[in-house]
């Protein structure tokens, strides 16, 4: 049984805006019958103000597909077409208090229906570049197509690299066999052989920390933290540097990262980056730990 939020159940049992909108001037049909999820979104847009006066959905799909469709129509009603286009699939999932990783594609389908309907309203051709593969990494909801494309685009060779580029495999690690299988296949196509013992390529050696001034050290730590922020921001989180001691870096996790179950894992990732940058072992801890230690010390 899926772990659906109360909000998902509510929107499934009592969907809002079900059915086609009367006098609609925009329609978006998306979905995949093989996957068992397909959605028709109809909108009535005021041609002068471009405000979405009404939205309706018809969905062939599971509980979360119906709930995502219902949530989408609730979110966009009253918005202008341009405002509506800024709604992301994450917004739909957030509106429903989250979706199981296997079901995130339902929110993606909602967003795509919206893009298709807007294109239809504007008389444009909408083409979809979405291709979905089997879900490999359940911790971070990464599918096979995404992994395969990333391996090709970046000539990846190891599971570790795949984790660095896509996050897949960075959690419970149960999917490493699945990732290896994709690596074997893709490398074979390129006439190469997957080597499970190969280490991820190491960046050019950095001078030992001993050779750095305090300022250089802190700059490098800042640079390392800067480099991981975009990834966190993609997930609506962020991190800021608080303090640096000889062997410890204190940071604040903010946004979606604060209180996230994955926070510990994220800290490990940041620690890894900083260690690579400094060429020295260093601990990364949440700033709250520093306060605790200060309290004990005092």
């Amino acid at each position, binding site marked *: 049984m899926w772990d659906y939020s109360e909000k998902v*159940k509510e929107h*499934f*049992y009592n*969907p809002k805006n*079900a*059915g086609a909108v009367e006098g609609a001037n925009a329609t978006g*049909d*998306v*979905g*995949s*019958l*093989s*996957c*068992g*999820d*397909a*959605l*028709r979104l109809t909108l009535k847009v005021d041609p002068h103000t471009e405000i979405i006066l009404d939205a309706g*959905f*018809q*969905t*062939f*799909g*599971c*509980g*979360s*597909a*119906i709930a995502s469709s219902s949530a989408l129509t609730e979110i966009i009603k009253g918005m202008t077409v341009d405002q509506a286009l800024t709604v992301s699939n994450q917004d739909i999932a957030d509106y429903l208090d989250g979706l199981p990783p*296997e*079901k995130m594609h339902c929110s993606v389908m909602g967003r*795509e229906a919206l893009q*298709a309907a807007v294109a239809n309203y504007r008389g444009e051709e*909408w083409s*979809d570049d*979405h*291709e*979905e*593969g*089997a*879900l490999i990494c359940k911790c971070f909801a990464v599918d096979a197509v995404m992994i395969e494309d990333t391996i090709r685009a970046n000539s990846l060779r190891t599971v570790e690299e795949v984790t660095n580029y896509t996050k897949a495999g960075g959690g419970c690690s149960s999917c490493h066999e699945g990732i290896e299988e994709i690596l074997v296949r893709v490398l074979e196509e390129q006439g190469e052989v997957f080597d499970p013992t190969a280490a991820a390529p190491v960046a050019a050696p950095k001078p030992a920390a001993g050779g750095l001034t305090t300022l250089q050290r802190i700059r490098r730590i800042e640079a390392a933290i800067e480099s991981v922020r975009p990834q966190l921001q993609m997930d609506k989180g962020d991190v800021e540097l608080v303090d640096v001691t000889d062997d410890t870096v204190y940071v604040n996790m903010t946004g979606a990262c604060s209180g996230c179950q994955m926070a510990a894992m994220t800290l490990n990732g940041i620690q890894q980056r900083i260690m690579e940058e400094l060429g020295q072992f260093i601990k990364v801890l949440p700033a709250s730990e520093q306060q605790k230690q200060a309290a004990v010390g005092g």
Partner: protein
Amino acid sequence: MEPIYLDNNATTRVDPEIVAAMLPFFSEQFGNPSSMHSFGDKVGRAVKQARKQVQKLLGAEHDSEIIFTSCGTESDSTAILSALKAQPERKEIITTVVEHPAILTLCEHLEKDGYKVHFLEVDHRGRLDLDAYRSLLSDRVAVVSVMWANNETGTLFPIETMAQMAHEAGVVFHTDAVQAVGKLPISLKDSTIDMLSLSGHKLHAPKGIGVLYLRRGVRFRPLLRGGHQERGRRAGTENSASIVALGKAAEMAMEHMEYENTFVAAMRDRLEEGILSAVSHCFVTGDPENRLPNTCNIAFEFIEGEAILMLLNKQGIAASSGSACTSGSLEPSHVMRAMNIPYTAAHGSTRFSLSRYNTMEEIERVIAAVPPIVAQLRKLSPYWGVDGPVEEPGKAFAPTYA
């Protein structure tokens, strides 16, 4: 309102009598059956009795042909890997496209190791072509593994005939009989079946106990080594409480065999007839003339199974579905696809599987509950018009990345 459980092909309730039979083996009778003292001795005797009870249910010639395992999946893996190991010169396997993942996934994995696997196809009713099967039998084949009854549709395969054909060709024959044991009379001594898998929790014993039947004389290589248990064929301390439970379950299955095939079958038939006469655009999948007495699989067109299950569940009714969503995969059930059921129906396939604990009153409640649920979901469906499917559904709604 009391919940109604119609998902007995997934797992079954452990009969209270069976629970009572196994309980002493956690506390008073906790000994290791291998031990040389009275604690072990009594447990050893109980395991022996259970072995006889299972032997009787299967109609096996010798009780030493019964090997207790941890589950049906272990039995399946043991059977196939043993046949390969014992006949290293044979590099082919014959199975079917509609097997349970316990066989299918293993075979697909073995393909990567260089084995050639022949997957027999089925027709729109889920039936095999025995001529195609015959043509594949050769001295290159290490093992044939074919399920006795399909878990999704209940469709039965002609296992005794297929075993005989394999026997004549000198090929080892295994059947995954997890769904059939306890529901169909079986007499292995009158067959040429070499190996058979069963699972306790499908016949009112607990989860975590299974059996591999291994005909005397069939060459065998164990999966687990490291102990003399099960005559060295499956090492590991016996799960004595569950073995005792399975023995009791086997005995009770014999007692209820006729009831399963008359009264349970009648409830199933009533359920099916009740739903089909009240709901349009739905049909029974598989081979209704030739199936388990407890199983009914109905495909509701233009709606999706997980949504059906959630609405049934809201009314306390438990069933199961072959839709992609219920399993988190990207395709509807491989069994539905193998029978060439269109996507718009395959995703709406719903399995009701009964047991002797169901009642006719429950069945009537389900018959009353289903039509409004189907109507409610069809109202949301882009394929459905006012009171029927839209004209040419495939054209009226053809989403972008279908």
